[in-house]
């Protein structure tokens, strides 16, 4: 009699699965309950963003960038318009700069609220999800009174924004921010320091510093591993150098540095910093000004190429734009932060239990629209 050979089992998660946050397929090789290999299979949401861009004028690309990362549309189009503006060397009015920062930070909070809420869902906590959606709803309301849309805004334009802030926006913002700050403590009580939540997420799916950098993981996932890297601080774009805010990094408060709880905690803390930025921007913003003042008559950047990065809620969002002087770009490439985060999934989840994989995936905060483009 030979040895009993326990075969590896191949398990298929997705493409349609509530915990994959979109249409993602994972081919998981398991040895009992332990993961030995994961192969993510992506492309189910591929909408040919880069091919479309080659046939569209520069302004027409903006709605497409919104649809790439539909959770943080403001941040995505901000990166694109800043890149085009840098190529064309356009000076932006003060008021527009402030409005852009306010909108981008609001969208960051909304995105993080969704990330934390769905992360809670993955772990089995349903109530916090509803609490967080309550607050996200208020942000979407603010967007709605500004530009009419709740999810895909087409708000950032090359040289300006589509609509000026409506009457009452500033007052409503102050009121909302006060309430949000008290609500954030609620989240900590209901989710962050919940014993079951900590048991499920602390010490799970640790990403060591060097592996995170090697894979090109950025944003809250990298900061969760203890690397203090935030483009808003280290390579300030727009007017981010005028604001005072901290960059929270994972400290391993509940387990080790770089575990799922740390990534969760970095996002929760980052929302507080975003609130600080919005407050400062609301205080300093010029009360009057034409938001359409600097709109160029023709958007036609000179020959050349640029690689421009901004800090989106998911990490370093880069645009590689190459122009040959024609009205349509020669090439637009989006360097998606969630794409690189997902590429590290196989490495970090090998050796963990099957039930942990969905927690790790949830903690990476991926958006499939941005991965597949």
């Amino acid at each position, binding site marked *: 009699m030979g040895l009993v050979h326990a075969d590896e089992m191949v398990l298929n998660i997705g493409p349609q699965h509530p915990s994959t946050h979109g249409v993602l397929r994972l081919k998981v090789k398991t040895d009992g309950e332990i993961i030995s290999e994961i192969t993510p299979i992506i492309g189910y949401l591929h909408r040919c963003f880069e091919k479309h861009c080659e046939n569209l004028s520069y302004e027409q690309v903006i709605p497409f960038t919104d649809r790439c990362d539909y959770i943080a549309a403001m941040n995505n189009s901000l990166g694109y318009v800043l890149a085009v503006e840098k190529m064309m060397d356009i000076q932006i009015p003060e008021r527009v700069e402030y409005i852009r920062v306010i909108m981008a930070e609001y969208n960051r909070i909304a995105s993080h609220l969704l990330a934390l809420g769905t992360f809670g869902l993955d772990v089995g906590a349903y109530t916090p999800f509803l609490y967080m959606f309550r607050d996200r709803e208020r942000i979407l309301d603010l967007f709605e009174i500004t530009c009419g849309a709740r999810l895909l805004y087409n708000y950032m334009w090359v040289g300006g924004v589509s609509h000026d802030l409506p009457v009452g926006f500033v007052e409503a913002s102050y009121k909302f921010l006060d309430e949000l700050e008290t609500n954030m403590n609620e989240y900590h009580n209901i989710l962050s320091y919940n014993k079951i939540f900590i048991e499920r997420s602390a010490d799970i799916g640790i990403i060591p510093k060097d*592996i995170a950098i090697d894979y090109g993981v950025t944003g809250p996932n990298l900061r969760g591993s203890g690397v203090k890297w935030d483009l808003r601080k280290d390579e300030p774009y727009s007017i981010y150098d005028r604001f005072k805010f901290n960059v929270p990094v994972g400290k391993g408060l509940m387990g080790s540095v770089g575990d799922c709880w740390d990534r969760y905690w970095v996002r929760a803390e980052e929302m507080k910093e975003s609130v600080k930025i919005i407050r400062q921007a609301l205080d300093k913003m010029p009360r009057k000004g034409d938001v359409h003042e600097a709109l160029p008559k023709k958007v036609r950047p000179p020959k050349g190429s640029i*690689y421009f*990065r901004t800090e989106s809620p998911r990490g370093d969002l880069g645009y*590689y734009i190459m122009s040959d002087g024609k009205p349509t770009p020669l*090439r637009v490439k989006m360097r998606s932060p969630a794409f690189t985060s997902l590429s590290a999934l196989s*490495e970090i989840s090998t050796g963990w239990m099957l039930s942990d994989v969905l927690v790790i995936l949830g903690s990476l905060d991926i958006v499939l629209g941005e991965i597949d483009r």
Partner: protein
Amino acid sequence: MIINQKVSDIFQDKFPGVVILPEEPHNDYIQIQPEKWNGLAKFIKTDSELKFDSCQCITGIDLGIEEGLEVRYNFHSMKLKHKIEIRIAVERKRPSVPSVEQVWRGADWLEREVYDMYGIRFKGHRDLRRMLLPDDWKGWPLRKDYKTPNIYNGMKVPKVRKGWD
């Protein structure tokens, strides 16, 4: 960007003949020959003065039907906080570049995406498959000479742009 000049000087010093000097001097990028790229990549990752530990972006570009293809790499150093762009030109007929997937693990998927869209083969890549498109896709869609097929897997591809404009 002084770092580009510095990197270019170091390359010419240690790897003679690798850098293709531009006609007019500039500091935007460094154009190199593909042959020694793998060794060069290991060097810029580990050298104490450069330490480009993060591979940010790999972009494939088709410069036009008469021109060739190009692969552009954007590197960044988390420790020293500087960045460079490296460009490698490849021919259109049999495009191939040494893979740096084993130098930066993050380059794995980025290279696969370039292969998917442009058909540029990355020599030494351990798992060079299509990334975003289905495995049975034919052709390299982001090349300028790509023609949309009339029939894909037995399905007719709609070409009438009625109501689109």
